[in-house]
């Protein structure tokens, strides 16, 4: 179906801020007039346990709101690899955290291993790994205007995390640009 449907998953474990991260992206897309459906799978444990947050983006109203064939997959923990891998569309974009997802299966997709959590730790807190990932995802997928995303992250950040989140987002973009250059992807 030619309805420009794009599917994105951010997978990891509970407590990594995957849902918040997807909601921020959804907010930025909604502000740009896109139709978005954001869903999640989680376990009853509030920390740890497999968790993912999915986005379906469309130009018209989303008929089926759950992921069926992923265009982009961000992996922040190895736990998310097996449940998500079979959903990857041919040629899809995979961004995996080097530290948390050392081993990935073979697949017909573009895989980028980026130091997302390492960068977050160096910035001051592993908790902003989700925002680093968001920056890298948006740079590499070009799904969203950077300005719109920055605006949402700024609006949704608590005061104590504002500077750190903005730095994390910039670092994510930097990692994305670097990875594209290394792979000689068109800018």
């Amino acid at each position: 179906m030619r309805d420009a449907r794009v599917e994105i998953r951010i997978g990891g474990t509970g407590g990594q801020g995957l849902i918040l991260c997807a909601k921020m992206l959804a907010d930025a897309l909604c502000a740009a007039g896109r139709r978005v459906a954001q869903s999640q799978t989680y376990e009853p444990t509030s920390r740890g346990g497999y968790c993912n947050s999915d986005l379906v983006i469309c130009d018209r109203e989303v008929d089926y709101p759950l992921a069926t064939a992923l265009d982009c997959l961000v992996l922040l923990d190895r736990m998310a690899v097996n449940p998500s891998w079979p959903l990857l569309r041919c040629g899809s974009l995979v961004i995996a955290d080097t530290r948390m997802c050392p081993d990935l299966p073979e697949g017909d997709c573009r895989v980028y291993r980026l130091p997302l959590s390492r960068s977050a730790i160096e910035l001051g807190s592993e908790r902003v790994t989700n925002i680093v990932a968001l920056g890298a995802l948006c740079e590499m997928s070009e799904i969203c205007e950077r300005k719109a995303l920055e605006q949402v992250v700024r609006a949704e950040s608590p005061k104590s995390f504002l500077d750190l989140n903005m730095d994390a987002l910039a670092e994510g973009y930097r990692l994305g640009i670097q990875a594209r250059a290394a792979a000689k992807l068109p800018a």
Partner: protein
Amino acid sequence: MNAVDKLPAPGAALRLVSGNHACALGAVAAGCRFFAGYPITPSSEIAERLSRLLPQVGGVFVQMEDEIASIAAVIGASMGGVKALTATSGPGFSLKQENIGYAAGAEVPCVIVNVMRGGPSTGMPTRPSQSDIMQTRWGSHGDYPMIVLAPASVREIYTETVRAFDLAETFRTPVVLLYDQVIAQLTETVEFPDIGDDARAERKWASGPREAYQPYAANEDGIPAMSRPGGGYRVHTTGLTHSESGFPTQNPEAVARNLGRLLTKFERHRDVIDSWQALDCDDADVLIVAIGISARAATRALATARAKGVRLGLFRPVTLWPFPETALRAAAKTARAVLVPEMNAGQLELEVQRILGGKRVYAMHRYDGEPITPADIAARAQALAQETAI
């Protein structure tokens, strides 16, 4: 996301709202001013949101000690003249059954949200299910009428919550809003419709001479007038079978008359109560009947199949109980086979079989906590179209 705490302005622009938050917003828009509940996944966001919204509009939010007390408080609030809501999921819904029967029998308007998760018992708190379809209709003991609405999108949760209050007030009945965990915790871009501030339904209030007032005497519309608390009308309310006076009776004639009115009170109002969506049914070879997330999957399956020239149709009951049978019969007219995908071991299927009599009705069941996919539905429906081809 604090913007959701603000009530939507009529005709407001595109915004992102979750299903449960839309329910809270719809309740306030419908005039609900009392919520009593006990948190349970995956319905808790309704309570959480109403705990912030209700105080803004002069309403009352109470977190009760359990689910039984919650529905009891809701019934009390409604008898006090206030539009009232509780929200829960399977285990809590089971606990509420005795008092739901009381509300149906004593004809107390109220709205109960049941967000379906995997069962039985405490089951799978964070996984979706559609296995309370029969319980919403038959969960309490005895014969009683029930209205159940089954929205399938965030926008529809908003509009059906409003309609649930309108129906509850108009027909003096508990109304259940039934949807699955996927729709409940799904966040979608929504344009809220203008539901009109002043057009909200009010229950019929007692008027006329106080001495002549009987709390369960009804005119031809079958709906008795309630008395406003403190209005000076004498009222007796009981779960025991009662006569027009509201006092208990076991006199067969009085029971037949009063229970008979109760059990048939929706029949003459089906034009207002029934609601459904019929998609591409006019020439369908295979008709899919589904609710909630299964219906959303079917919508996509339909588009895939139609693109290949396979004629599928979708019938989605929005009012689930009483089931819109006349509409289903009309929608199934050209269908050689009917397919019912549902996230349970076979419930909606039974009602569809009952209504469609001789038609070939096939079911798709899934109860592992995973939704039925559009691809599964499309494959099964296309196979049925081929098998039944003339």
